[in-house]
């Protein structure tokens, strides 16, 4: 079986064109493909459509995030569960560009976002969900009652690319995620035409238990080994523990 492994992060994101739509996985640090995001930043593509949980601000330590892509005006459209920080004092580049009308931003309930991606990945063009009924996010959308309850119609999402981070991959692209790393990764891998994966370890086919594989390799186009490509295993720090923050 032909290997899907490429040798560098640059090779992994090669060919991503201006105007591409891109899913970026991750929820906090676990499962965030920050090496691929940094490579995309270097690669130069612009006029991107970004679909993710959020897009933080550029970091003061110089480490690259999707916020850098936004800050440099290379993202023209986003669909996110978080399009603004919770405190006005911490305004992100996305908020400024959104206010200025330079980015089209859709704020969506996180579960609707996840289900839209899963639907797109499952060949389902639209579905009804109860989330957001009676709020701004349901305005202008079709409503319908089922069993006496009101639901809103939401459409599936598919994209040109997905950037994925996993624990172990085999050369065919079968993926295993560790703990909270899983989050958006398996569904985003399903929804993109070209799914690109950074893996903490790459093994040979047959080394992963078929019952434990979370993403079948048929969803995956390119895999790059983080250690072999000289990448960082962690970049965004974990948030401090809730209790620790209070007690320190």
């Amino acid at each position, binding site marked *: 079986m032909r290997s899907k492994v490429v040798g560098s992060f640059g090779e992994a994101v090669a060919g991503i064109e201006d105007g591409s739509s891109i899913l970026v996985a991750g929820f906090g640090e*676990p499962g965030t493909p920050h090496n691929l995001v940094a490579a995309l930043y270097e690669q130069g593509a612009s006029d991107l459509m970004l679909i993710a949980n959020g897009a933080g601000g550029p970091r003061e330590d110089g480490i690259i995030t999707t916020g850098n892509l936004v800050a440099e005006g290379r993202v023209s459209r986003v669909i996110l569960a978080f*399009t603004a920080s919770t405190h006005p004092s911490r305004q992100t580049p996305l908020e400024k560009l959104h206010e200025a009308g330079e980015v089209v931003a859709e704020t*969506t309930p*996180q579960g609707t976002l996840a289900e839209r991606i899963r639907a797109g990945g499952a060949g389902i063009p639209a579905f009804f969900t109860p989330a957001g009924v009676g709020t701004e996010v349901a305005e202008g959308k079709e409503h319908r009652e089922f069993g006496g309850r009101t639901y809103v119609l939401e459409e599936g999402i598919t994209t040109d690319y997905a950037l994925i981070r996993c624990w172990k991959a085999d050369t065919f692209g079968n993926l295993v995620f560790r703990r909270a790393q899983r*989050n958006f990764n*398996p569904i985003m891998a399903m929804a993109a035409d070209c799914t690109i994966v950074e893996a903490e370890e790459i093994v040979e086919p047959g080394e992963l238990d078929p019952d434990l594989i979370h993403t079948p390799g048929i969803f995956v186009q390119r895999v790059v080994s983080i250690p072999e490509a000289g990448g960082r295993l962690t970049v965004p720090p974990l948030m401090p*523990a809730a*209790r*620790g923050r209070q007690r320190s």
Partner: protein
Amino acid sequence: MTEPGRRLTRDLMAARIAAEFGDGWVVNLGVGMPTRCSDFVPEGRDVIFHAENGVIGYGRNASIEEAGRYVVNGGAQPVLLEPIASIVHHADAFAIIRRGLLDVAVLGAYEAAVNGNFANWRIAGRKGGGIGGAMDLAVGAKQVFLLMEHTTRDGRPRLLERCALPLTAAGVVTLVMTDLGLFEPAGDSFRLREIAPGFTVDEVRQLSGAPIVPVPDLSEVTV
């Protein structure tokens, strides 16, 4: 403004809400104060904590050294897994929410209203916001508890007759824990169940934007 009593600490608020969790409940904790609740489950009670990222059956907050870098709660903070833990992906995590398997979602909020409405995703006058999982949780969980500050930084009330900010969901809030007490939306007022030590009902009323009706046997908040 000086205040007669001392407002409740965040840990005490979290512990008081956690005391409401029933044995065997499935509970989601929102970003911010709510994530502290997993540190305060009463002895002898089994509570199953569910997070939007698909981590089911986590326990107390921990350092990165203890928890490792792969296990985080819905606030992306390190937590420990309980023996019953399992992991699903994001879509399945929300399937659990919409399916109605959560006994309660504990959420932070900017505003709560007497009719059970609440707002926690968008600040007045700004474009965009942060919905996170709140809208799904609000319509999916059997109950919604709010864990919030009673007033804004400049002293304006957050407990209101009607929400001024864009809603997260309508008519779903069953309990509101603030740093001044424990309240229930009661249609045209907030029912005050417990009050912060050192505060009087009138003082709480002055800091509220809606009628406050204490229960006959009003007690102080204790855990």
